[in-house]
């Protein structure tokens, strides 16, 4: 059973009062997220990430298509018992203290008062809210509210959490703490679906990602697959390479870039063709010694920028 499965999930809005026009927010999204994964939902601002999250949580209703969470149709009240959600830039009742807010949310899950207090206290400890928990939330900074938001998303010990831009508003220390928290959730077997435009976080945390552009899924897959598929050449490190051999290889177009690492030791960038085995064999035959050979992969940022730039704008609809 998938943690999330969407089939042709689509959301159009009507914009304009006198002449309503369709506005594409999400178009034909089909994807799966496995249980226990940390799944990164990436895309530039306005790509449709928050729209997808809202659809999955039934805060908005799809124009067409369907989706399931933990094997149940979205909106199933039983599913809500098993999930947690942190909205983007969350706002909570500012007349409550952090402890009261968490106890209130725990009450909605039907926990007894003693259990509510225990859970609220433990989670506030986990996200690093100390004595401030007795203050009304109107006195909290943005970063502290984000921590409270993460704590409330975990109040029911969920099987799956949806985090919309969880690092937003956090300082570097806070971001590191939340990264560790997400990794701890993964260790517990909790599926984490998080949207972000911070690729470093996705690269550090995710097993799989999806990139959304203009409301459409540009690519999805495991991080290693996406980046390996995007290999753009090879990096060969060799020793004992004479200048003459190096010049000859350059002349043949077998080397695109040379970095001198030390005495007759070089890092060479090779093109995808001819195959690196052939170039390596030539160099070895001329006295070079192999140190290492690695594929040159794009970073997630390279892939992201390429996908975003290449994505066509959907016809007949305004861009999301």
């Amino acid at each position, binding site marked *: 059973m998938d943690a999330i499965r969407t089939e042709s999930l689509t959301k159009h809005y009507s914009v304009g009062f006198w002449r309503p026009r369709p506005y594409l927010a999400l178009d034909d999204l089909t994807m799966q997220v496995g249980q226990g994964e940390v799944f990164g939902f990436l895309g530039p601002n306005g790509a449709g990430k928050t729209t997808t999250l809202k659809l999955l949580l039934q*805060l908005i*209703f799809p124009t067409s298509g369907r989706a399931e969470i933990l094997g149940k149709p979205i909106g199933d009240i039983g599913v*809500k018992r098993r999930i947690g959600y942190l909205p983007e830039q*969350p706002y909570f*009742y500012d*007349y409550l203290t952090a402890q009261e807010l968490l106890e209130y*949310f725990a009450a*909605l899950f039907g926990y007894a008062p003693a259990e509510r207090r225990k859970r609220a206290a433990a989670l506030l400890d986990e996200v690093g809210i100390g004595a401030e928990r007795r203050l009304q939330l109107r006195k909290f900074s943005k970063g502290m509210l984000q921590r409270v938001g993460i704590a409330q998303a975990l109040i029911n010990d969920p099987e799956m959490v949806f985090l919309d831009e969880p690092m937003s508003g956090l300082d570097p220390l806070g971001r590191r703490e939340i990264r560790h928290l997400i990794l701890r959730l993964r260790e517990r077997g909790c599926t984490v679906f998080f949207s972000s435009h911070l690729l470093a976080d996705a690269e550090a945390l995710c097993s799989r990602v999806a990139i959304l552009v203009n409301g459409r899924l540009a690519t999805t897959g495991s991080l290693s697959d996406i980046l390996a598929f995007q290999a753009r050449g090879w990096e060969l490190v060799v020793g004992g390479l004479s200048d003459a051999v190096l010049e000859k290889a350059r002349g043949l177009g077998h080397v695109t870039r040379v970095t001198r690492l030390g005495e007759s030791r070089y890092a060479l960038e090779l093109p995808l063709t001819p195959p690196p085995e052939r170039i390596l064999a030539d160099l070895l035959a001329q006295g070079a010694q192999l140190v290492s050979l690695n594929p040159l992969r794009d970073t997630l940022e390279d892939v992201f920028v390429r996908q975003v730039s290449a994505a066509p704008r959907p016809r007949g609809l305004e861009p999301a």
Partner: protein
Amino acid sequence: MRVVRHVAVNVFKESVRDKVLYNLVAFAVLLISTSYLLGQLTAGQDVKIIKDLGLASISIFGLLIAVFIGIGLVWKEVEKRSVYTLLSKPMRRGEFVLGKYCGLVLTLVINVAVMTVAFYAVLAYMERVATPGVRASWATPATDPAMLKAVVLIVIELMLVTGIALFFSTFSSPFLSAMLTAGLWVIGHFNDDLRNFGAVVKSPLAATVARGLYYVLPNFAAFDVKAQVVHGQAVPLGYVGLTSLYGITYLAFVLVGAVAVFSRRDFK
């Protein structure tokens, strides 16, 4: 019902922390100072005026709370996006709406109860200090329990006003909600004119439309028995019961409408 209760208690907590109950102090000051001033100026009529003023104040203070908090109840949650977190919890949208409603009604009932106790306390004091001659001039005793009938109908009216404000709040801005709720309240107090519209216009179509509106719009005038109880006119319990039943039935339709609208709404 558990979820509705928790949401309602939270609304009540918000009212308390946002100092909504401070209006009780204003009410007490108004009532006590007025009774003192009247005591200096009039003889015999002061109790009647205090009764008029007290019941009208209970109604107006309650109305202000019902409209001005009711119109923001749902709108504020959507605008500030706190509804996103809340609706991701195991809760139906209908439970959210009913919880919000019950919370405000709880605030109103406590308000009215405290104001009524203060009102009776002032009247009891006036009864105690009045001479037998003055007391004999009163149409009804100062602490006449019949005034509770008016209070009960004020509560039902406020429940209905709150429901209407909440209904508008599920899809429109606070300003528009306030205008629409206040508009309905005013029309509802002149509802009888709609029924008799046919007598003053020649157009049968206009008369029919007006008569249709009479049946559709809430008849708030029916809840107003303040003048009767103050002047000692009988208000049968059957009337109070039937009017309450009318108010609660109307309220049920309004709340069903609010739940239906809110349940279909996209939070963009």
